[in-house]
């Protein structure tokens, strides 16, 4: 095990990443090959990232409050999208009537990329938090419905028969057999939703907002503050990654006895 950790390739990886930053630094700070408004050096970018926690210029808020604004909307939209999407998907797959009513609307909405909803929501709800939350809701809602739906539909017939022979009612079959066996799919849906939510949020903030990380990088561009743009991108990347990791931890807690690769 220890031998693996310090293998040749680990060393190469470390060198590769270090080299990336060194080359970036040398090209920008030392050789001045590209002007700072196109590409500032890495130290400036990380400096900007740290300083932004206290500085309010040029976009009127600190990084902390941008993050808070983004997270609030993202979690709200994702929460509603999941809270409504997962049950709807399950019901659509389990009850024919729900399927008949909801399916066509759904087939209609599905091919539209979630971000295309941004203008619609702005026209309906203005450029406030509600519009953004509605966009995130749409982004999270659709993958959740689709994956829960397929998850329930893929419930093994044998498992259902087993449940039947033990005298389970239809509702018990749903809660005791179908939903547990669909959990991996449901979580796949949630993971996808979380990804698209985060993307839609950044887009929405870039298009219509006065707060949030998307807004911050958009303003950074308008002021040619490339260091801020990059700092914002890093923050967006880290937060998005963090949210995904948290969801994965939750998933590993809840979904047990899974077959397949890894873990």
């Amino acid at each position, binding site marked *: 095990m220890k031998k693996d950790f310090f293998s040749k390739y680990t060393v190469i990886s470390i060198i590769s990443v270090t080299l990336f930053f060194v080359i970036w630094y040398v090209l920008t700070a030392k050789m001045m090959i590209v002007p700072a408004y196109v590409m500032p050096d890495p130290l400036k970018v990380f400096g900007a990232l740290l300083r932004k926690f206290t500085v309010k210029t040029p976009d009127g808020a600190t990084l902390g409050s941008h993050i808070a604004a983004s997270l609030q909307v993202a979690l709200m939209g994702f929460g509603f999208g999941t809270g409504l999407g997962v049950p709807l998907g399950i019901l659509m797959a389990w009850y024919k009537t729900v399927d008949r009513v909801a399916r066509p609307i759904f087939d209609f909405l599905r091919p539209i990329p979630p971000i*295309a909803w941004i203008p619609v929501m702005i026209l309906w709800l203005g450029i406030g938090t509600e519009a953004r939350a509605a966009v995130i809701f749409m982004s999270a809602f659709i993958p959740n419905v689709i994956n829960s739906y397929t998850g329930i539909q893929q419930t093994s017939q044998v498992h259902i028969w087993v449940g039947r022979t033990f005298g389970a009612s239809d509702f018990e079959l749903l809660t005791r057999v179908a939903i547990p066996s669909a959990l991996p799919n449901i979580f796949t849906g949630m993971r996808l939703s979380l*990804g698209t939510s985060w993307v839609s949020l950044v*887009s929405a903030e870039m298009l219509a907002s006065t707060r949030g990380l998307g807004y911050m990088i958009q303003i950074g561009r308008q002021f040619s503050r490339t260091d801020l743009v990059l700092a914002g*991108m890093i923050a967006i990347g880290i937060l998005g990654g963090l949210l995904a990791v948290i969801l994965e931890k939750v998933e590993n807690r809840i979904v047990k006895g899974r077959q397949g690769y890894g873990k």
Partner: protein
Amino acid sequence: MGNKTVNLIGKNSMRIVLTLLPIIGFLILWQLAAMFTSIGNLMPGPIQVIESLFISFAKPLGPHTIQMHALYSLKRVMVGYGSAVVTGIIFGVSLGLSKMFRALFRPLFELIRPIPTVAWIPISILWFGVDEMSKYFIVFYGAFANVALSVYMGIQRVDPVLVGAAKMLGCSERQLTFKVVLPSCIPYIFSGMQVALSAGIMSVVVAEMINSYEGIGWNIHAGQQTANMTQVLTGMVALAIFGLLMAAILRQVERRMCAWNTRNT
């Protein structure tokens, strides 16, 4: 035999009617709601949207007709997506086959990947200006990782028994790569390309919404700016058709190239 075929056709058309019926019902409901309730203030009915879509084939929306907008978007998607597919396959294969390559580039790739495509739009404008290049870059970025990762996964999941069989049959290492590993990745390549296509289309739409004077994304955005809901919805319908059409074409290509992977039914 003849009887069976007739039966099948009958069944198929029944199925089509069954799927179409609720959609038509939905459209009628929407139309009625738009005509007689306050929803009409929020958005036009489907007839109006479809009408406006047809009109826009002849009468320009902004600078271009809708098919010209679609062509602009198509060009951006083709350039960005095309180059992402080519480089993504090469990158994914190299990741899968060479430990050295993986050690060198995997960490950098993982470092950059969490940053969503849209977050690159401002910097791409700073780097490449407001013209086409920045849009190609955005579409490329949106599609690249999907293709690369899918191919990489495909290589990791090549059936070891198949590799053993090829070795027993006298395959050299080089032949193994080209005659076994790559062919068995083809389904993964296609599934990566499908995901990348929707990511690419999504990217082009945001890029056009934020920074463009033409394209389907611009259409939707311009509709919002002039508070013209009909134009927004027209753009969305056009976008949906555009996306479905591209995906269908890709599926056809896949069916041709992977006849071995799907039972002909």
